[in-house]
């Protein structure tokens, strides 16, 4: 099987967020870049699919030169080759344009059986690129797959479980198809030391976005970014001797909390 996995590099959003001077982007100065966590699950699923059915895993990623590091990480986990769509920060490129460009390059690669990608990227959180790529490629997709039940290259189909409100649904889809991955669908492996060594020699092809016509592709523009400020009351009830409330304090704490919720916050 030819298995594709689309990944991106993202700002580690555990970190503090600062808006840039221009006011419509995030200041990435000094920020740590990591593989988008949801894409780690996608890479793992791709490698497991290869381990079961044979074939190759091709990584596709778009971004500036620094994303090579993330691509190498996926190669070290066990992917076989990679395509880097080099984009040195095209101003105002939105998700729509991104989807078009990535799909265009995947079409050129051709001959794939299945595509995995994360459900969204944790910085922009636009949550649409994966599905848009499937549509651009003219292949069906299953989004937010909690479990790949079966991939059957002979019968040319995949069977996936997807969680819905109050339960789940099982979807059967013909190959080639695209699957978007939430967290917890598998347990992403760490890159081993030999894996990291091997990754350095695996083939990595580069195409430049400047060679692609971007005219009129963007549909949405970010005009401003604000950091929400929510002041919390921070009224914490603690124990007398030691942090935890104990014994008779418990009743009093429960009583006090109810009073606060009723009289101060007025929510019960």
């Amino acid at each position, binding site marked *: 099987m030819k298995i594709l996995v689309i990944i991106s590099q993202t700002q580690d959003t555990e970190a503090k967020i600062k808006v840039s001077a221009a006011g419509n982007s995030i200041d990435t100065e000094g920020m740590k870049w990591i593989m988008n966590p949801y894409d780690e699950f996608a890479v793992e699923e791709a490698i497991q699919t290869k381990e079961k059915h044979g074939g190759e895993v091709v990584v596709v990623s778009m971004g500036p030169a620094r994303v090579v590091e993330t691509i190498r990480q996926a190669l070290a986990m066990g992917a076989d080759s990679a395509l880097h769509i080099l984009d040195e920060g095209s101003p105002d490129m939105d998700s729509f344009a991104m989807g078009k460009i990535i799909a265009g390059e995947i079409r050129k690669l051709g001959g794939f059986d299945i595509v995995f990608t994360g459900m969204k990227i944790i910085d922009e959180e636009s949550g649409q690129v994966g599905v848009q790529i499937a549509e651009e490629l003219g292949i*069906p997709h299953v989004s937010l797959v909690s479990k790949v039940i079966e991939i059957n290259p002979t019968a040319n189909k995949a069977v996936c479980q997807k969680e*819905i409100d*109050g339960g789940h649904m099982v979807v059967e889809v013909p190959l080639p198809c695209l699957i978007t991955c939430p967290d917890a669908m598998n347990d992403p492996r760490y890159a081993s030391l030999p894996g990291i060594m091997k990754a350095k020699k695996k083939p990595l092809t580069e195409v430049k976005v400047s060679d692609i016509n971007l005219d009129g592709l963007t549909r*949405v523009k970010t005009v401003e970014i604000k950091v929400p400020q*929510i002041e919390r009351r*921070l*009224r914490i009830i603690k124990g007398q001797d030691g942090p*935890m409330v104990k014994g008779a304090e418990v009743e009093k704490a*429960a009583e006090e909390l109810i009073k606060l919720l009723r009289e101060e916050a007025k*929510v019960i």
Partner: protein
Amino acid sequence: MSNEVWVVADLKIDGSVRQVTFEALSEARKKIAGKLGGELCGVLIGSGVSGHAAELGKYGAGKVYVVDNELLKNFNTEGYTIALSELIKKYSPAVVIAGNTVFGQDYFPAVAARVGAGVTMDAIEIDLTDDKKLRIKRFSHSSKAIPTQVFLDHHPMMTTVRPNSFKAAEDPKTPEVVDGAVTINPGDIKSKVIEIKTKGSDRPELTEAERVVSGGRGLGSEENFKYIYQLADMLGAAAGATRAAVDAGYCPYDMQVGQTGKAVSPSLYIAIAISGSVQHFAGMGSSKVIVAINKDPEAPIFQKCDYGIVGDLFDVLPPFTEKVRALVSQS
């Protein structure tokens, strides 16, 4: 191109209309349709759904487009994508809105790609700029940032909206019902839903609830989650959980609140034995009042809640729930 503003109804598995549909209709009427000078319309996609037109009319839809097809009985990606794309191509609305539900996230970006439209997801505010472009606000960067985004010169302008972000307000109309007359063939449906399992619940849905009680890894077992359900039921609240609790099998996946799971913003969120991770807060950080019960005084959640008790949940919850019960039975 018309000036119409469309809201696509989001249907639950039992066929009823999800609350976010009424919220979107109300907000679109207030913030968009008037300024644009276009009619507010509902869109119903499904099988045997035209009966819901009156409900959409109650929230201000003057016209309701219906695509009624046996093949749309249960939600399926291609069926919905074809239905909405064909309607858009035929009637060319200015703005199209849907709920950011599991289904909305699945087919809405596909429709946008198919009709060449721009789309944003999970908006918490919508309105129009002076030159009549759709403008939205949403969360990004694990809910630590709120970008404002404006649409450029393409039509239609499409967005999903986060449930429970707007008030549903009635504005009764008797809508004109338009048969969308979209043809869908069995061969068009590539991904087939071969099984749906749902269990009914008497608790409110997480994304719609005014109060939420959630449990984390510290609950320790599925059995112990009864403490969460008891308190939730006492408060008329929805029950939620962290990924750690779901992962451990203490409760089903659809209870997960957070970056991957549901986004909620109730007026009261009670977090029990939850440490307060960035990913969990990405889904509930905008709740009006946050309460934490945790035995670790150093738990990060105590830095970002309104009220808290440092204590063992097994000590604190029984008397707390009992006092809530007394309160409820009084009133």
